[in-house]
């Protein structure tokens, strides 16, 4: 019998299984905790969006809005808050699966929090990559909006993002994300919060492989 079967029986390892396998109280507590964190992040994201609504934030807004003078530090902190808002709900099945592994070992909830923190840290660090296009397009002159190449660059980003959905890498990462208990066991770095943090980072990297292309759409639209 495999480790996965020990934890979830002989049923399929799917995101839905994660919600069914833990005791209801644990499932509820983790789900609510993550959703509260996401809700707080959405609150701040909406406030920031309101204060920047007349500025250029995406390729499609060049020439239609005022230049964005936001500093690098502010961009990265805004990105981190935005990623917590957008990605925290998506990590719930993985957090539940990871909790299942921890529970089997008798570990505390601190390790679960460390797992979620590690996952979200990956998406926060990715902000450095998205910073580069932001620094480029926010400085474009207004007449770039009427250039032939701006729609070509924007359209190419969308086509590449769409094409990636058919790649082997996407299929691999998607398959891993959709088998959360197997992934939690595969990425398991050992006992204690530090190891849980590392497991969360590994899981975040799988998630990145799955979702980076869709996130790239923000460069065009937002």
């Amino acid at each position: 019998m495999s480790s996965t079967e020990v934890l979830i029986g002989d049923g399929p390892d799917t995101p839905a299984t994660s919600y069914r396998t833990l005791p209801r109280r644990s499932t509820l507590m983790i789900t609510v905790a993550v959703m509260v964190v996401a809700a707080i992040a959405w609150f701040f994201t909406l406030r920031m969006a309101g204060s920047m609504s007349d500025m250029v934030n995406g390729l499609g807004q060049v020439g239609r809005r005022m230049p964005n003078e936001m500093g690098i530090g502010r961009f990265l902190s805004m990105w981190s808050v935005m990623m917590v808002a957008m990605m925290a709900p998506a990590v719930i099945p993985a957090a539940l699966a990871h909790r299942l592994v921890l529970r089997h070992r008798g570990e505390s909830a601190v390790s679960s929090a460390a797992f979620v923190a590690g996952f979200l840290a990956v998406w926060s660090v990715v902000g450095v990559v998205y910073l580069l296009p932001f620094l480029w397009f926010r400085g474009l002159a207004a007449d770039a909006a009427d250039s032939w190449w701006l729609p070509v660059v924007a359209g190419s980003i969308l086509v590449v993002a769409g094409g990636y959905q058919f790649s082997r890498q996407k299929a691999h990462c998607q398959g891993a994300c959709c088998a959360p208990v197997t992934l939690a066991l595969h990425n398991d770095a050992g006992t204690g919060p530090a190891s849980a943090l590392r497991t969360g980072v590994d899981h975040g990297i799988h998630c990145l492989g799955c979702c980076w292309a869709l996130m790239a759409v923000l460069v065009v639209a937002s």
Partner: protein
Amino acid sequence: MNIVWMIGLSLLFLVEKHSPKALTFGRVLGVALVVLGVAVVTQPDLLHTVSGAGAEGPPPMEMR
């Protein structure tokens, strides 16, 4: 920050991480993105509409 796109993408991520048909769903999204990308290249005004900036032209200059 375009809140509509952010909320939309968040919902897509949520579905991708929860659906048993996530790969198929992702491929449907892929087709939609490719179509949108080609449409943006062939109809450049669509880019401003997609980003929520409208096609009404640049913002007025401030008086100094």
